[in-house]
């Protein structure tokens, strides 16, 4: 587990201040999409060894959602960005 997260609003913080939601690369399917697409979106998750993008919430700090890119094997953190601005950049 990556133990120090550089929050873009609060600075370097211990991981205990955050709660982790999971994969940040998922895109919500169209409401009319097939049951399989929805099943995949809701239930099916990969468990990668290596680089992973996750949604973390800084629950005990600024309470903002962040996108944390980290390595699940080496614990290295590559980037931390505000989830709202990340979503805006992705055009969502």
């Amino acid at each position, binding site marked *: 587990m990556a133990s120090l997260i550089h929050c873009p609003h609060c600075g370097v913080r211990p991981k*205990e*201040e955050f709660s982790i939601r999971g994969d940040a690369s998922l895109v919500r399917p169209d409401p009319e999409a097939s049951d399989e697409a929805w099943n995949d979106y809701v239930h099916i998750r990969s468990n990668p060894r290596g680089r992973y993008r996750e949604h973390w919430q800084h*629950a005990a700090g600024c309470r903002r959602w962040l996108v944390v890119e980290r390595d699940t094997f080496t614990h290295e953190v590559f980037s931390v960005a505000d989830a709202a601005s990340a979503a805006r950049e992705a055009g969502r």
Partner: protein
Amino acid sequence: MTRTYISRHPLEDLLPLEPGIRAVDHLDIPRAMAIAAVMAMDGEEAAVAAGLAASGDVQVRFTGPGEWLILSQSETPEELHRNLSLLLAETAYIVDQSDGRIVFRLSGPNVRRILAKGIASDLHPAVFEIGTSSNVLCGHISVNLARTGENEFELIVMRSFAVALFNDLRVMGREFDLSADFSAQG
């Protein structure tokens, strides 16, 4: 049936009525303080930040992007709310928090060593400068920590956590004989 609600500090039963002997490291607890939460409307963050910076005798504490806690010692909660509403009209949402938050003032030469027992953030004087404020985790309780002086910190906590945080601070400060009292200025 009408009820009369009496404002009561949550630590009233835990602190002696008469002020005790003050140690070098001291926990000072103001009995009443006007506190308001301010949240900027979408796109107005910079305007609200500038307005608050120019507002003079209130203390501004950062809680998140576009969100602040405003403290005032001299104003009543109603006055603070009215003044902020006038200052930030149509740019921010203002909610009175005077009964919802409790302020702790921790001061003394060992204050960083006391706080280090509960807070994992870097509080080195060169990193956490005077005037800095932020939400941090103290043990398992989320508090707003601000550095108000050379060796002086203020913690703002939700009222229902005040007793737990007080007990935690007592244990954290026991090594340094931390004393605790209600603030003399009320």
